[in-house]
């Protein structure tokens, strides 16, 4: 450990700090006016009707959703509901989608979505699925890129603050999830001040089925109570390893701002996951009794199911001495990013005045030679100098994340000095720097954390917008900036607002996704128990105080559109099947007084809205999505009779509507 204990060193540090401040003042961000050069507009102009070259999946942060943009135009294509309810399409409100948000705590309709990973094959994005993390109630979700739908959510037991997630291995063998907030095992309470003794950090390895994508917690690593912040898989030579940044090696449990920032160096933890996997296969995992939800969407029944699982395999700290190694890294490292070759690992110490780059070859050698610098909680600590490739000097203030291009360059975001700095990974020389507006967090180069980045753009995701857009009261939008990085100098092209708070994103060539995009569901494949395959099957069935309405929708009518015999106190289920078999013809469904949301039903799909009629009278319902020239006519009435009345169930449409025949 390097520690500054004497006054000489303190003085040195102070003078170094001052030098840094002066040098940083020299590169004060320029004003927006001077930052945009000619030709920027042309580079982002995608003519009306033309497609963008790239899809960008951008985290919505505390909105709990995922935004899909087209680049380079930065047009917002869609907001995908993941962890938060979405009244726009009934996600988290419809009977079918409710189980997606089930957890061991019951229904949790919100989360804080930070990081995004597109599934990989051979270290390159394959465009099959997107994985995202829920930070608050620890969960990992999988979105299918054929349908752009959340198809699976798995909860993580014995975890809190699921931040170093959902980073994936080169062939999507595993998605990892590490605790940012160490906690004791679920359901066990201790005095908080016994943190050091009773709290633990855990890292979950979630196995992914290579064909179906189905997730399953393969094993958990039980570790000292550090705050595991971010992570990235090794690749190439470092294949089989995973790197996690940590902070709070001080093991503080209060006023972390100060108490977790005391040590000069925290750690990047290198995990030999192949070895951990082999131990699990050899039966060395300990079964732990837990409770966590595993929720899956079925595309044939158009319904989710939720299962509570009760067991997890754990490797305890004493078993992991030859699996996990700690590398000292200056000042509370945040991003831990592996370059495309897999040889270099960049640690971004949030409070550090330099940027260390570690060499995997040296890490391997240090482990072989037992070149250790003592222990931390029984784990070997590698000697900083032995594993260091070198340091980028005076890079900026507050380094957070690094992405890479295909020419051997790295792009690091600096929150405090609000800039992106381009530097050469081998020579560690700074090549260029550009301001961001303002206080960049994550940044993304298309494929920038994979084996094959395309060094055309870098996107900055910012925390503060202040004077960038027209003001919208106290709450302002957050933003992103697109830069051209094809030349030596980075060039600002575009500045645009985002949804929620954008953290990480992944950007992938459109060709890998667009042609697989599903257009509609085949009605003959619909296995929903309450589906109707044609209009003649529509009906209303009473079962005690439960009423099931089997309703169809096709341009431009709902069937049945006259329903009588519903009573106050009933529990009414509207099972809506969209009979259309064509692209872009969804129908919506809303009913007056429903305390849920609308449904938006895709062609060939069935969705259910539950409704409690509370007042006798006539209740209209209608299609909310302007589907056709006669959309306004796509509506109907329900007669709600008082509780206990004898109105019989009657229903119909057109000539079959209840009443005297014409």
């Amino acid at each position, binding site marked *: 450990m390097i520690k500054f204990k004497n006054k000489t060193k303190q003085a040195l540090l102070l003078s170094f700090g001052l030098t840094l401040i002066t040098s940083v003042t020299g590169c004060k961000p320029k004003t927006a006016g001077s930052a945009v050069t000619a030709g920027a507009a042309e580079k982002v102009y995608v003519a009306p009707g033309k497609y963008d070259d790239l899809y960008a999946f951008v985290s919505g942060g505390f909105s709990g959703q995922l935004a899909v943009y087209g680049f380079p135009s930065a047009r917002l294509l869609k907001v995908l509901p993941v962890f938060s309810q979405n009244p726009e399409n009934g996600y988290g409100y419809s009977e079918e989608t409710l189980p997606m948000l089930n957890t061991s705590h019951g229904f949790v309709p919100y989360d804080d979505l930070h990081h995004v990973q597109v599934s990989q094959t051979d270290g390159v994005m394959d465009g099959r699925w997107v994985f995202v993390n829920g930070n608050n109630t620890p969960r990992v979700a999988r979105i299918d890129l054929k349908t752009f739908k959340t198809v699976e959510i798995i909860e993580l037991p014995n975890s809190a603050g699921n931040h170093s997630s959902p980073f994936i291995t080169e062939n999507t063998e595993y998605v990892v999830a590490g605790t940012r907030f160490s906690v004791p095992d679920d359901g066990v309470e201790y005095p908080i001040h016994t943190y050091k003794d009773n709290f633990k950090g855990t890292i979950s390895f979630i196995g992914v089925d290579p064909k179906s994508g189905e997730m399953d917690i393969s094993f958990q690593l039980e570790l000292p109570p550090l705050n595991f912040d971010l992570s990235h898989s090794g690749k190439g030579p470092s294949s089989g390893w995973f790197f996690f940044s940590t902070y709070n090696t001080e093991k503080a449990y209060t006023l972390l701002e100060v108490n977790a920032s005391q040590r000069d160096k925290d750690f990047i933890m290198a995990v030999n996951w192949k070895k951990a996997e082999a131990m699990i296969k050899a039966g060395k995992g300990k079964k732990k009794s837990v409770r966590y939800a595993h929720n899956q969407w079925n595309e044939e029944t158009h319904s989710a199911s939720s299962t509570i699982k009760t067991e997890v395999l754990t490797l305890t700290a004493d078993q992991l001495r030859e699996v996990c190694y700690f590398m000292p890294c200056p000042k509370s490292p945040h991003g831990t990013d592996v370059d495309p070759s897999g040889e270099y690992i960049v640690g971004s110490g949030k409070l550090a005045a330099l940027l260390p780059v570690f060499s995997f070859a040296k890490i391997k050698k240090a482990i072989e030679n037992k070149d250790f610098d003592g222990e931390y909680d029984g784990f070997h600590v590698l000697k900083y100098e032995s594993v260091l490739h070198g340091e980028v000097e005076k890079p900026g203030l507050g380094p957070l994340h690094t992405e890479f291009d295909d020419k051997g360059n790295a792009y690091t975001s600096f929150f405090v000095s609000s800039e992106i700095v381009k530097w050469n990974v081998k020579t560690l020389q700074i090549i260029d720097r550009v301001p961001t507006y303002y206080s960049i967090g994550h940044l993304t180069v298309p494929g920038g954390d994979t084996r094959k980045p395309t060094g055309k753009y870098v996107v900055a995701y910012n925390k503060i917008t202040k004077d960038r857009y027209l003001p919208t009261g106290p709450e302002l939008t957050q933003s992103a900036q697109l830069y051209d990085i094809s030349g030596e100098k980075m060039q600002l092209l575009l500045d645009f607002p985002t949804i929620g708070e954008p953290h990480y994103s992944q950007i992938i060539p459109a060709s890998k996704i667009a042609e697989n995009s599903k257009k509609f569901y085949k009605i003959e494949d619909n296995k929903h128990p309450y589906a109707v395959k044609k209009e003649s099957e529509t009906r209303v069935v009473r079962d005690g105080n439960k009423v099931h309405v089997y309703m169809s929708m*096709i*341009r*431009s009518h709902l069937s049945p559109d006259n329903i009588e015999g519903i009573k106050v106190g009933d529990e009414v289920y509207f099972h809506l099947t969209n009979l*259309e*078999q*064509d*692209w872009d013809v969804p129908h919506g469904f809303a009913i007056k007084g429903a305390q849920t949301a609308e449904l938006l039903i895709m062609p060939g799909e069935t969705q259910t809205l539950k409704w409690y009629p509370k007042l006798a009278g006539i209740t209209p319902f209608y299609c909310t999505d302007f589907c*056709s*020239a*006669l959309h306004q*006519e796509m509506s109907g009435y329900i007669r709600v009779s008082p509780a206990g009345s004898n109105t019989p169930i009657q229903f119909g449409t057109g000539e079959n509507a209840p009443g005297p025949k014409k």
Partner: protein
Amino acid sequence: MQNLIKSSSISTLTRILSILCGVSIIAVVFLPIWRIELDAPQYPEGLSMQIFSNKLSGDVEIINGLNHYIGMRTLHADDFIEFTVLPYVIGIIGLFGVIAGIIRKRWFFFTWATIFLVFAVLTMIDFYIWEYNYGHNLDPTAPIQVPGMTYTPPLIGFKQLLNFGAFSIPDIGGWIMIAVGAILTTLGFYEIKRKKHV
């Protein structure tokens, strides 16, 4: 050589082409004959319907779904007696062409060529009658009623029908029929001219 050929026989060229035309006509039984392409602001990708000798294919269901707005009857293969008869008629006419080439009889060739041409014209007339009926016999309770508007698709070429542009053209089978018609007409003149010279 020509003097040796009996005046009641057709030339070798006519024989070969008759057989080729006959085989091609038989192929038409399995090929789309006509196609109608539709496009509208709501369907930038376009809708298309292909007419075979025995069926309709393409986006028939989608087109049927839209027909009810203007009160046009939905299209069902069962409504057309033609789909039962046409494959046989076309097959037999094709077979006659092959026979005409084999037996070389001049009278047979001319009879066959005439039957084919008459058949082709009658088919087009029949097609037009269907189109006219579909375009004119509209449900009086249809939601969209434009005074004076009818929806007969073009027999061939382009026509704007409300928001839909309808483009009607022969498909591969149709082009074969047209080519056969042209070849037979030319051969007919050729044979008449040839007889005068003999």
